């Protein structure tokens, strides 16, 4: 019987090889995540691990925004709206899910244990909700071009922010949830303008690394797929792309949905960090602009450039703030009348970013790496060596 129901012909070896070739990077992502949890995390200590998590989340957000702003050449300045939507959805799933399953919202310990499973599910739900929102928003607005699209996405982010502010400003406990009537659940009890507190802090290096690595991998793959090339063609010249038979509106919506999906997952990780309360402000203009700066500086369309920019722009302020731990530096800065490094960086960081943005557009309009990747700048010998290694 087994012979009859089995495949008539053995699959050709090239299928296995193709499958292997497409899956090994995913395996690398998982290995990286495990290494981050069991080796890197304990080695660098809790503070650095926390910075690394922030870096991972920033990378996810910047890489996902790069799909729309970099590949497709559209200009979205409402990306934080998707972050907040994903974060709130994921938070609601884990918080109210925990109450429903276990009666309290305490963290269920254990790697890949039931708590973490619920958390991963919540993040995916956040991604899906954000993607659905991306579809709904993208469908009408992506017919607009350039400036108008930017304004429409900005309006979207603001609408999300105001709607989140209008949620009920209580967060129910298990007993309150049980006795709540249907009317009391609308508007949903998500904390209103104060933010959604009480979300269990499940985010750890394993999940951040896993999701960030998969996001980067997916955007890299997308760039080199036929859809990615079509997106790049839209970015270069929309009319010409249309003339070549590219369905521009549909592809732009796809880019928008992918981008929103990863931003939603990042939002889930963002909301579950320990000691962080996600609030409607996180959907606002300021956060969207931070992400735009990462993409613009890294190079619109360059996956590696954007990843590096996201990492540098997240670590740099922490490094400078860390200088405050050295009395010599603090004294010197005090003598110069600048104040301590933490205050200094808080004051001047944004001034510097803004200056960088303007100077970058004037001096190097395509970002540090442009559409190219960092390895395109390696010496040619090394490059052929790498390529030979990648494709045996």
């Amino acid at each position, binding site marked *: 019987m087994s012979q009859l129901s089995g495949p008539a012909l053995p699959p050709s070896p090239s299928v296995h090889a193709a499958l292997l070739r497409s899956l090994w990077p995913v395996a690398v992502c998982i290995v990286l995540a495990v290494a981050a949890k069991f080796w890197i995390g304990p080695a660098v200590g809790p503070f650095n691990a926390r910075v690394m998590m922030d870096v991972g989340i920033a990378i996810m957000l910047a890489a996902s925004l790069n799909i729309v702003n970099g590949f497709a050449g559209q200009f979205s300045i409402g990306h934080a709206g998707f972050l907040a939507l994903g974060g709130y959805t994921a938070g609601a799933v884990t918080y109210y899910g925990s109450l429903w399953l276990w009666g309290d919202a305490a963290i269920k310990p254990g790697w890949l244990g039931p708590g973490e499973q619920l958390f991963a599910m919540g993040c995916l739900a956040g991604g899906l909700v954000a993607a659905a929102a991306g579809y709904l928003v993208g469908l009408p*607005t992506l017919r607009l071009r350039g400036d108008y699209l930017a304004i429409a996405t900005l309006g*979207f982010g603001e609408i999300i922010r105001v709607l989140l502010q209008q949620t009920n400003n209580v967060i129910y406990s298990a007993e309150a949830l049980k006795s709540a009537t249907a009317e009391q659940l609308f508007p949903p009890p998500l904390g209103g303008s104060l933010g959604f507190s009480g979300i269990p802090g499940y985010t750890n290096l394993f999940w951040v690394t896993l999701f960030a690595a998969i996001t980067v991998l997916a955007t890299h793959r997308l760039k080199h797929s036929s859809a990615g090339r079509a997106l790049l063609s839209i970015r270069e010249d929309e009319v010409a792309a249309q003339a070549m038979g590219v369905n521009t509106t549909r592809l732009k919506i796809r880019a928008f949905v992918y981008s929103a999906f990863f931003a939603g997952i990042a939002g889930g990780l963002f909301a579950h960090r320990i000691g962080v309360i996600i609030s409607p402000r996180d959907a606002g203009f300021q956060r969207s602009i931070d992400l735009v700066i990462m993409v613009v500086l890294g190079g619109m369309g360059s996956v590696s450039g954007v990843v590096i920019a996201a990492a540098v722009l997240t670590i740099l302020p922490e490094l400078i703030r860390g200088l405050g731990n050295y009395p010599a530096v603090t004294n010197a800065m005090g003598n110069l009348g600048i104040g301590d490094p933490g205050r200094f960086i808080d004051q001047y960081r944004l*001034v510097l970013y803004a200056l960088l943005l303007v100077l970058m557009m004037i001096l190097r309009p395509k970002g540090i790496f442009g559409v190219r990747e960092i390895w395109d700048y390696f010496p040619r010998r090394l490059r052929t060596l790498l390529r030979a290694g990648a494709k045996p």
Partner: protein
Amino acid sequence: MADFLQTLITSLSVGSLYALIALGYTMVYGILKFINFAHSDVVVLGAWISYKLASKALPMAGIDPNAAPWWAGGAVLVIAMITCGLVGFTIERLAYKPLRRAPRLNVLITAIGVSLLLQNVGQLNYVFGTQPASMPALLPNPDVVDAVISTTPDGGQERLVIGLVEVTIFLTAGAIMLGLEFLVYRTKLGTAMRAVSFNTEIAALMGINVDRVVSFTFVLGSMLAAAAGFLYAMKYPGLNQPAHYTWVLMGLKAFVAAVLGGIGNIRGAVLGGFLIAFIEQFGAFYVSAELRDVYVFALLIIVLLLRPAGLLGRATAEKV
């Protein structure tokens, strides 16, 4: 009835502010075809300069800023307008002029950069700081109209109160807008502006100094912004710090007004400003005050979908 009239009056004064700001957006867009994101920050600059002048310079000159003669307020307005005009000129020369031929996306990003720069420089401790401030009253604010509209059954009265500030705002804004209308449609410079807006290259071939016209537009737009900032500070004396959310929202709404009326169209900007104010104020009063920002942005998205060129704008086809 009294509520309705009161909301109407508020809408008119808020609408004149939006219209003044929207004019700046629309003039720059009409000529350079890009959204000057930094425009709303020039409004903030105008408001804060007015505050500094009123609260620091007037006492130095021996004038009580809460009961100043009428010309003191006028002097504050004029100095704020001149300062902002200079700032606008500098911004155009340093940031936008090098990008005259760059792709529009790059100019947009630069504009966002300039906007962030103005906000964050304004927040520095020795500029305006991060604390909110309270604008001195300048003028005594007697009620121009204080009429009893109707009496309620229990003996209370429904009154309609119109303050001097509201009348001043409406009249100043109206005068500025009429002046602009005259300038653009009746003078040689205005003709040059319209020519540059129509086609930059042909205008240059006809002997128009394009750079000068562009600079003039920026200076004019920034002066209008300063006037709006001054009037805003008169109406709402509690000034938030320069990067505060309320300012960003104010700028966005004025921008929505410009888009609504048809960006690049001067009369459209005025129409859009009043329309936005009416929707916002009446929606806030009769439906829900919390959702007032949602109305404006929802309206923006609807208008962009149905009539992307705006109410008075003309649709243009993209040429290849």
